[in-house]
């Protein structure tokens, strides 16, 4: 027994330990694509803008002949409508943390091994979950439901499990003898070596870990370094390999980027489903529930839509939470093109542990039927979505001040004298003898200042070509008008009211 914890976070591989490693070979793709169920050929690219290369293709792209490291231009000649995504390292890091938190429901000993792998010590959990095969199946299915492709390896050492996972050797090695035999078959690529070490080993014709083990240790150490030898020892269990313990975050937050903008509720729910499953796993690990959570729907260039889901009593039942989301979304008008969803749950409350997720069924909620109904009703009536303010540097007044509340001062485009009150939509004015008339006011408008010419916005289809004037009405009201520079169909140049000076 070598269990010597250092300040509670260092673990040492012991004889009775069994590690399960989750290796995500297509993490960069899954992170960006797991919210979308459509099987379009899709790749993640990397490299300089003019020489983009494929990092990971999805299954549909592989079938069409696209492989990793192919030039993007070459890939595009194979698939015309190839969906190209750029790698998002921050999102990957967040995803691995989320997965680690989710894994907390199976063991209290979780460790982050590399940017694309998570380690679970499962020796102590085997009995609780009915043995190795059911546990493994539960984990695999759970990860798949979250939308990730995973390869698992099981071994008495962390590195051993990792290498087996990377090499996709599924057969568990439960003791050191089995481990040695299994590792011998692992190809060099499975070891995640530095490129110079890899060059040496490959360059002399070695192909597997076994090939390395056959060479004299000192000769190998001289060429590949002491760290390499130590790594082999740690993998085989001949040297200690302490691992830092993953600490569960205090609250839950997870984002899910969508590979293509979505405005269909069903597709959105597919993505949210994955987030809810993550939340449920996280809550299971903490033996907790939530009395509510918030969904944020991101739209390009706009303020995100916030959807709050409230529960009558705290819960961690994924199916129940998802039902609430569905009802609520049906009530919420969605702006076009959601490209990312986030789920945030800050209020985490202790909840009696359910036996295991395996035996959790819908019946356990039967008596709570009326509370669920109340929640659904509340969701239907719902409170107003909060919208924020956003100021855009744009010459077009209605764009520059879009969300600016009337009377409020914003960082406008210039020091130009702008009215304090701006109409969200310019108001078409009637005219007499080509002079504009103010609605509801008799009497004439006198142009005082102008024209100030604004011609801008061609790039987004909202090109304006206007001459603005400040004008005074006989009543003393000062207004901001513009006349379009181009005549309309009837040959008239139309006048609009756009603002009122305070």
């Amino acid at each position, binding site marked *: 027994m070598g269990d010597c914890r250092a300040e509670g976070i260092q673990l040492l591989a012991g004889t009775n330990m069994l590690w399960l490693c989750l290796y995500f070979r297509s993490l960069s793709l899954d992170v960006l694509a797991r919210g979308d169920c459509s099987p379009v050929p899709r790749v993640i*690219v990397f490299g300089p*803008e*003019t020489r*983009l290369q494929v990092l990971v293709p999805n299954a549909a792209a592989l079938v069409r002949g696209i492989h990793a490291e192919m030039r*993007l*231009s*070459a890939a*595009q*000649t*194979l698939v*015309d*409508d*190839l969906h*190209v995504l*750029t790698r998002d390292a921050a999102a990957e890091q967040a995803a691995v943390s989320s997965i680690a938190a989710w894994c907390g429901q199976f063991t209290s000993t979780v460790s982050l091994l590399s940017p694309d792998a998570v380690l679970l010590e499962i020796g102590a959990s085997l009995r609780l979950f009915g043995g190795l095969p059911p546990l493994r199946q539960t984990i695999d299915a759970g990860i798949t439901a979250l939308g990730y492709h995973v390869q698992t390896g099981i071994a008495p050492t962390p590195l051993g499990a990792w290498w087996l996972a990377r090499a996709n050797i599924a057969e568990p090695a439960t003791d050191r003898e089995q481990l040695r035999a299994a590792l011998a078959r692992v190809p060099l690529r499975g070891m995640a070596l530095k490129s*110079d070490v890899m*060059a*040496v080993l490959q*360059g*002399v*014709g070695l192909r597997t870990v076994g090939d390395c083990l056959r*060479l*004299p240790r*000192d*000769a190998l150490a*001289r*060429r*590949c*370094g002491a760290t390499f030898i130590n790594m082999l020892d740690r993998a085989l269990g001949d040297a200690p390999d302490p691992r830092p313990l993953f600490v569960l975050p205090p609250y839950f937050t997870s984002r899910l980027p969508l590979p293509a903008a979505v405005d269909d509720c069903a597709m959105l729910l597919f993505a949210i489903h994955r987030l809810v499953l993550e939340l449920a796993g996280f809550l299971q690990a903490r033996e907790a529930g939530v009395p509510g959570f918030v969904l944020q729907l991101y739209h390009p260039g706009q303020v995100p839509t916030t959807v709050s889901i409230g529960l009558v009593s705290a819960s961690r039942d994924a199916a129940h939470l998802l039902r609430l989301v569905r009802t609520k979304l049906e009530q919420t008008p969605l702006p076009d093109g959601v490209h990312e969803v986030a789920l945030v749950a800050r209020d985490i409350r202790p909840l009696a542990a359910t036996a295991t997720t395996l035996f959790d069924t819908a019946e356990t909620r039967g008596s709570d039927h009326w509370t669920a109904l109340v929640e659904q009703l509340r969701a239907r009536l719902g409170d107003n979505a909060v919208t924020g303010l956003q100021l*855009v*540097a*744009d*010459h077009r007044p209605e764009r520059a001040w879009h969300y600016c509340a009337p009377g409020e001062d914003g960082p406008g*485009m*210039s*020091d*130009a*004298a702008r009215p304090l009150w701006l109409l969200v939509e310019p108001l078409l004015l009637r005219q007499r003898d080509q002079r504009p008339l103010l609605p509801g006011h008799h009497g004439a408008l006198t142009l005082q*200042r102008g*024209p*100030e*010419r*604004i*011609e*801008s916005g*061609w*790039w*987004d*289809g909202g090109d304006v070509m206007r*001459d603005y004037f400040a004008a005074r009405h006989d009543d003393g009201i000062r207004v901001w008008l513009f006349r379009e520079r181009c005549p309309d169909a009837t040959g008239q140049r139309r006048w609009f009211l756009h603002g009122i000076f305070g």
Partner: protein
Amino acid sequence: MLPEYAELHCVSNFTFQRGASHAEELVVCAAELGYTALAITDECSLAGVVRAHVAAKQAGLKLIIGSEFQLIDGPRVVLLATNRHGYGNLSAVITQARRAARKGKYQLCRADLAGGVPDCLALLLDPDTVSKEHLAWFAATFVRAWFMLELLRGPDDDVKRIHIEQLAARYRLPAAAAGDVHMHVRQRRALQDVLTAIGLGTTVAASGAALHASGERHLRAREKLARIYAPAPLAETVRIATQCTFSLDELRYEYPEELVPPGETPAGYLRQLTEAGMLDRWPDGAPEKVQRLIEHELVLISELRYEAYFLTVHDIVRFARSQDILCQGRGSAANSAVCYCLGITAVDPARMEMLFERFILKERGEPPDIDVDFEHERREEVIQYIYQKYGRDRAALAATVITYRYRSAARDVGKALGMSAAQVDRLARSRAWWDGQRVLAERLREAGFDPDSAVMRRWRTLVEVLTGFPRHLSQHVGGFVIARDALHRLVPVENAAMPERTVIQWDKDDLEALGLLKVDVLGLGMLTAIRRALALVNDFRGQSLRLAAVPAGDAATYQMIQHADTVGVFQIESRAQMAMLPRLRPATFYDLVIEVAIVRPGPIQGNMVHPYLRRRQGLEPVTYPSEQVRGVLERTLGVPIFQEQVIKLAMVAAGFSAGEADALRRAMAAWKRKGGLEPFERRLIDGMRERGYDEQFARRVFDQIKGFGEYGFPESHAASFALLAYISAWLKCHEPAAFACALLNSQPMGFYAPAQLVQDARRHGVEVRAVNVCVSDYDCTLEQRSDHEPALRLGLRLVNGLSVAAAARIVAARCQQPFVNTHDLAQRAALNRKDLAALVAANALSDIVGHRRAARWQVAGVEATLPLVPAQAVRESVIEFARQSEGEELVEDYASVGLTLGRHPLALLRDRLKDYRCSRELRTLRHGSAVQIAGLVICRQRPGSASGVIFVTLEDETGVANIIVWRALAEQQRRELLQARLLAVSGELQREGEVIHIIAHHLHDHSHLLGRLVTASRDFH
């Protein structure tokens, strides 16, 4: 009555990322609007003024030369030149500001302008936004100064106007109107916004306040101006314009004077040098014909006062020769008898029996043109000599204007419109190299875009306009301008990207338009190769062969050329040339001159090739449409082939005057970039018809003119190139080992990669020996064989990833004592890990440690012990590693050295490609046979002249096969055509004598076999 108006503040697209119109467009538009004058005031630049000047002369508009500056510690001002002196001062200010900053930037402070800029007018921009301190400085600094009133429909023009008028009154300076013009018409607004975004490196949507609020910054109609301005500020513009009397026509080039010894006249000195050279060339006295020629030329040169130009070129050539740098002149004046005597060229008019159109500068009124090619690796020495001799303030390189091409425009516009990197990349690649200028809707659809969507329509329009816009100034490859006095008073000089290098702001067209002379100091790889080959031969055989002494008219050499056995030979090694050689069968030097010139876009587009061949083969009678035409075309059997013949034809057959012919020549050189050939078309065809010539003939001549474009070959160029072609062919024929060796040592150059050069040498019986750390030098070398013939030893320079310094240390260490083992090698040559790895990859250690795997194991061990155990190798047991498979070795050979001395990859794959013929077998097949062949794609080529055809060269273990892919198939099988590394072709064999092509009917990409070969061999041990 419309007011008179002169626009005094106007930037062209040479104010990069701001100006949205060409200078020519601005000029034409200003003339149409009836402006009194237009000032081009690019920001700290005169790069656009020559174009504007040429256009203004044509449009009859008065042009003012000026420039806009944003002072670092002061306001924005415009300076306008009033006269030559003022122009010189302006040019000097720009030079100073540009030289003070890195390439493309400038830096100007108030202190730099202290005391004003004499003979320049100063205009203060936006005085209403300028601080009191700066206003006072401006008013105090400039004697003739104005406050500019630029009313552009801003938020409150009235307030602005009143403010500026008050300021003007306070400082007792007049106010004048101006338009801050960025484009010739309002319609360029979108492009102008895009340029702003490109400058900021962001999207238009995100550019916000940096964009102009409206499209007012264009050349406005005078009636509009009359509504905006009071009469006084408009009248003031005209008053300013009348004070500016300077025209670029006043610039006169003044030659450097120091080349003439004291007491001599330039003419006398040139005559002296020419006569000395004549004695050198013809020790027994020059033929009388030559003497008369020289006399005639000297008189001409003297009349036109071009002596200094010839003396300048002569001086440069003399320097090169003193340094043993091979060089050769070309260009119309280079092939004069005078230049031959001065040693500028080696094309001997007497020996080659050529009918040179002796330099005809008087008739054509063009400045003499001499380009000198130097060995490409030593050109820098010549450039440094020029800088040193004349000083940096008197010598500078001409600029090359880098313009937007389709791809760069597609990218920049795409980015500005907010497209993703991947989309932009796809757009940029959407047009294949054979699609021509326009972006085809179909291509965009293929690339997954909807060409009719609003975004794509905007994108297409913008890309089309932006294409051809200047992006930045770069240095010309070697066009030097040398002045008698300070160059920066003639044209602004700015920093180039290379440190210590400066360029002027004008390109070669600008210089030519103003009649300024430049000397082209160019680099030519073949000269390097020839010098090296001669040195290798002389060294190996103990003789002293010189370029000029290579035997002329060698039958074996011409025979080789006739069989198109010309891999590596200068100019005649391309696919198209090789296809022509067996038909044209050059047998004399002049045949080579024609060969060099005929496989060019001009004659091909003018359909002159086949008539010439038929006449040469006696299949068609040699006739002339008239006696005058006979005079022009007799030496080319009645078919125009050279550029000057076509120009001459325009004169004798279409009645062009000398001036018109000269204009035609200029238009010809520039029309691909600028257009402007149309007026000549009618004139030429009508002129020839009037004089009784066949319209078809006239049309062919015109097509040929279009084809010449930038690539036209005058006879004089062709002759200079033909000489190098002959000499390189002679070397290849008689000294193949030395020739291949020299070519390898001069890479990169020419048409073929080292792999093909080595294959070719081996096919010619040259023994090629592998790179070996125990014997190889840095360069490839010749080694003595037992039969005393040379073998070619590959040099360390071919080892990919090995530094030059490391190679030098290896050779030095080896000279002291041979290497005993890897450790010894690493120690004594102080090699780092990367060097050693590179040597192992090249299999260069085989003599010390055996095959690659063993060597790699050894080397890895050596490296790690170096810092700890400096003196001796660690003793360790020997481990046996299996040797690599042949396929694996092949892969590493190619990756490291770029070639293999083992079997050709196709030999290894032949089992799987049994159904395909070898290239050698093609010779046995009849014309029209169906044939299937496969090989490594070593070359894809689309000659500019052949409409949409792609030539593909395939290499297999027996040689090469030439494939022709017609446009339809190319479109249909783009992917295979462009991406296959191992390509199989089924098609039809076509032969004409020795020339064999396969017309492809279907392409098949077998590249995966190369991949599998790698994998299979990896699994195989």
